[in-house]
């Protein structure tokens, strides 16, 4: 034995293994443990699924009451046939876990404010935000409601057991790819995680409420009188969900505006608020849905369409499946993380959802006695706070403890410890309907079992948050739409800004009863629709929230199209869902051209003007005119308002596009066209439009030099992996559309599930989503549908009875669940 070389060699070996077994810091991120990650028998190579893989499997399992079968079609969509609902939900949980375990675990970790446990300190800001917003608190409240209901408890218990049966069955090498990349392991699933997932959707779809702080900044900066001009009550071009002129019942709740609101609330103009939510849900989170009755279709049977617009991610938010038990036969898009189908159809009815966009989250300015937050001033006395402690565990770092004061309004989100750019020393509590116990799952459970219109009304009547427009159609010929949620009965403009928290008169005074929510059944015009626009005209007795939260143009165009259509087929509806017509440009181009003085343009600039003039108003991928329009339009908007906002660096809201468009169309002497920084000159639209066009041409020239003038290339849509890793994402997708179009596809946001259901006696449906059934980046089923989705193609879905599934030629694989 040679001691010295032995020691050197042993040390080198140990050191090498140690390094290969450690996550190394590179830049801002960490590497995987390279030895483990690259190991062919344990690491990522095990996730490289053979292209010709067979999914056939016999699964002997405890936890189900009877044997059950799952048939997978050629798109890897499972069709579950079980003898009881609970067995079906058990299997749904098992399948979600088998194909989507990492995303389920990751998304609920984010919702629970536990990202730091996975990625370390980099997740702390997100975690603090969600903890302080009361996500976990809200999920705990909702869990109580979910478990108090025997049907949703049984469904969720079975679902959780199914997820855990899968987690318990896998070996180390079978862990999903991202667990290996980030080096952690899945926990067991729980009903709380399901509640957290649903709460995350509430968060994502009630972002309207988050604007209170920025809106308050904006009002303070502009003054309320100017503010009112830039943020009008409602848009003239609004075509509401419930047609104008509909009469509404007398309200059962009379709301009182607080006595001194004018001075204490509206015209209050103290130090600007600077607290900034670190995460703001995408403003475009919205959707389209509509249904046409048999009077308008070729077959004489209704057709229902639904396409929710959300962030475009991989693995997809949605997982497509069919669930068949003796009590129901249902098909559609499910959430990995929750039982039942969320948007879909049964053999009798179909339903879809769009976001209601109502403001159900308000902020209150709390006056504490001192920085210990023990007591706060409320109704002329000092009231004791309660406290909630949230402990955030951070990978490789000591815990962070958030002590959150709880007031009569809700948790104090922003305080001295958590400022988030809040520099004025204030305390802001948040009141949000998602803090209240609620059981949204029960609505979906009942919709999955619905047979007719009254089942639908019954199913949605208890739905609380996030408020949705539920569209409905049935084989028996009914169509309907209802805006449903737990909506606050507000006085006009309540909660547009931060409200005083020293006085009960600013608290919410009640909730609007479900039967007073906007609704419409079998209207004479033979169609119903919604696209996140304001639901009703000004005769509706309750305040809906500020108009900027309700986009106008998609809804306008959908109604105009549907009104003019007849003999409709499902193919017509597919064409309409993927339509790239730009109605905003239809309205505004004539005015832009009218105000633009061509004689002042260079030859180069005239080239772009010609592209705009000859453009067909469609945002198709090859159109250059739509790029010219978009750049020119944005430039005009900026040119008009940037002088008003030039003296502040605080986060502010600018006017809505529709406000700008309507000013351009209707007000030839628009006051804001004047540049306030040029005292000697009064600018008009002509000046604004000329300078804006000249500026736009510079951007267009640059895009042209880079060969990016075609709209599809200019917009550059991508579907992002949840970890924002480009190699796992799909980039540069050739798809048209845009924010104001029916095909509302922007860069990383758009139709996340497109569905057209034809309610013939045997229901037919067509669907597609920008993802794939497998969440594994090493599977060829990871992004299968993305190209079809981008091209606007749909799949004819298989909606089969069990005997049909056994012999259908598109059925490729079979899971046999055998009771152990």
């Amino acid at each position: 034995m040679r001691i010295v070389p032995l020691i050197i060699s042993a040390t080198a070996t140990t050191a090498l293994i140690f390094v290969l077994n450690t996550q190394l810091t590179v830049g801002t991120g960490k590497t995987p443990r390279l030895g483990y990650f690259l190991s062919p028998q344990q690491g990522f190579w095990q996730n490289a699924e053979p292209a010709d893989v067979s999914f056939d499997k016999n699964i002997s399992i405890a936890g189900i009451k009877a044997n059950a079968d799952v048939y997978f079609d050629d798109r890897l969509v499972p069709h579950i046939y079980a003898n009881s609902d609970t067995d079906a939900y058990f299997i749904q949980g098992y399948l979600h876990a088998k194909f989507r375990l990492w995303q389920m675990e990751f998304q609920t970790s984010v919702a629970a404010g536990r990202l730091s446990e996975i990625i370390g300190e980099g997740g702390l800001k997100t975690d603090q935000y969600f903890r302080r917003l009361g996500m976990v608190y809200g999920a705990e409240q909702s869990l109580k409601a979910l478990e108090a209901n025997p049907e949703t408890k049984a469904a969720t218990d079975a679902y959780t057991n199914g997820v855990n049966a899968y987690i318990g069955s896998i070996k180390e090498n079978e862990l999903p790819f991202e667990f290996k990349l980030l080096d952690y392991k899945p926990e067991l699933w729980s009903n709380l995680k399901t509640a957290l997932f649903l709460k995350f959707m509430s968060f994502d779809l009630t972002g309207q409420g988050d604007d209170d702080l920025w809106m308050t900044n904006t009002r303070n900066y502009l003054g309320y009188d100017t503010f009112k001009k830039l943020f009008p009550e409602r848009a003239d071009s609004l075509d509401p969900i419930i047609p104008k002129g509909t009469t509404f019942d007398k309200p059962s709740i009379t709301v009182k505006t607080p006595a001194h609101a004018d001075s204490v609330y509206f015209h209050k103009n103290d130090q600007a608020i600077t607290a900034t939510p670190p995460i703001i849900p995408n403003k475009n989170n919205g959707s389209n849905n509509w249904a046409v009755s048999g009077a308008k279709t070729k077959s004489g049977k209704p057709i229902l369409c639904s396409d929710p617009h959300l962030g475009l991610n991989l693995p997809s938010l949605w997982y497509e499946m069919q669930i068949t038990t003796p009590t129901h036969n249902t098909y559609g898009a499910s959430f990995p993380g929750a039982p039942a189908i969320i948007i879909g159809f049964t053999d009798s009815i179909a339903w879809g959802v769009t976001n209601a966009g109502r403001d159900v989250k308000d902020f209150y300015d709390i006056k504490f006695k001192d920085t210990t937050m023990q007591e706060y001033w409320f109704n002329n006395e000092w009231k004791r706070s309660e406290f909630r402690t949230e402990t955030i565990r951070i990978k490789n770092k000591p815990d962070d403890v958030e002590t959150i004061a709880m007031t009569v309004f809700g948790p104090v989100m922003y305080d001295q410890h958590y400022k988030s750019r809040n520099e004025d020393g204030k305390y802001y509590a948040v009141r949000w309907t998602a803090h209240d116990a609620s059981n949204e799952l029960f609505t979906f459970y009942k919709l999955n079992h619905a047979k007719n219109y009254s089942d639908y009304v019954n199913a949605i009547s208890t739905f609380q948050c996030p408020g949705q427009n539920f569209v409905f159609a049935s084989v028996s010929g009914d169509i309907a739409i209802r805006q449903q949620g737990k909506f606050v009965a507000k006085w006009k403009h309540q909660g547009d800004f931060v409200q005083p928290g020293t006085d009960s008169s600013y608290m919410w005074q009640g909730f609007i009863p479900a039967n007073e929510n906007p609704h419409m059944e079998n209207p004479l015009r033979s169609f119903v629709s919604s696209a996140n626009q304001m639901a009703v005209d000004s005769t509706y007795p309750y305040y809906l929230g500020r108009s900027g939260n309700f986009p106008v143009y998609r809804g306008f165009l959908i109604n105009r199209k549907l009104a003019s259509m007849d003999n409709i087929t499902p193919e017509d509806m597919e064409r309409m869902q993927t339509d790239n017509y730009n109605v905003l440009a239809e309205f505004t181009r004539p005015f832009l051209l009218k105000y633009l003085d061509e004689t002042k343009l260079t030859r180069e600039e005239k080239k772009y003007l010609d592209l705009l003039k000859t453009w067909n108003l469609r945002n198709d991928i090859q159109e250059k005119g739509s790029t010219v329009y978009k750049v020119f339009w944005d430039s005009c908007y900026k040119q008009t308002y940037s002088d008003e906002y030039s003296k502040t660096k605080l986060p502010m809201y600018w006017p809505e596009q529709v406000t700008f468009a309507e000013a351009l169309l209707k007000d030839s002497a628009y006051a804001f066209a004047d540049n306030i920084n040029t005292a000697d000159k009064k600018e008009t639209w002509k000046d604004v439009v000329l300078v804006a066009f000249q500026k736009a041409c510079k951007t267009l020239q640059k895009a042209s030099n880079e060969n990016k003038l075609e709209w599809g290339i200019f917009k550059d849509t991508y579907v992002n992996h949840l970890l924002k890793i480009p190699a796992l994402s799909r980039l540069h997708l050739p798809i048209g559309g845009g924010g104001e179009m029916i095909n509302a596809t922007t860069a990383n946001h758009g139709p996340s599930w497109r569905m057209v259901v034809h309610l013939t006696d045997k229901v037919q449906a067509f669907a597609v989503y920008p993802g794939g059934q497998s969440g594994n980046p090493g599977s060829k089923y990871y992004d299968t549908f993305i190209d079809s989705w981008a091209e606007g193609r749909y799949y004819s879905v298989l909606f089969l009875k069990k005997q049909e599934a056994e012999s259908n030629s598109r059925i490729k694989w079979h899971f046999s669940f055998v009771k152990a």
Partner: protein
Amino acid sequence: MKFITAIILTALLSFAFGLFTALPWWSFAITSFVIAAAIHQKPGKAFLAAFLAVFLLWAILTFIIDNANQHLLSVKVATILPLGGSSFVLILLTAFIGGLVAGLSALTGSYLRKR
């Protein structure tokens, strides 16, 4: 002969222990060490035998996996790491790391026996 035997045994045991996925990924370091201690060769040869054994084992395993997968995942990982998106380079890197760990372990095993 010893050289060939060492290669075959090292590869075989690495593979066999690799099937027990509850063991750490570096279990083949122990088996490579034990074999080098048992089949006594000069340090250089011991290193080379174990290096080649695991290098070839891992190269073959990953080559088979990668082909069946039509390079879907290897291209993505070779972009993340970053290796220019080359599956081939990723396979080489994987095999080299396995070989190096095995080789150094065997070297240690060989020194243990050397008088």
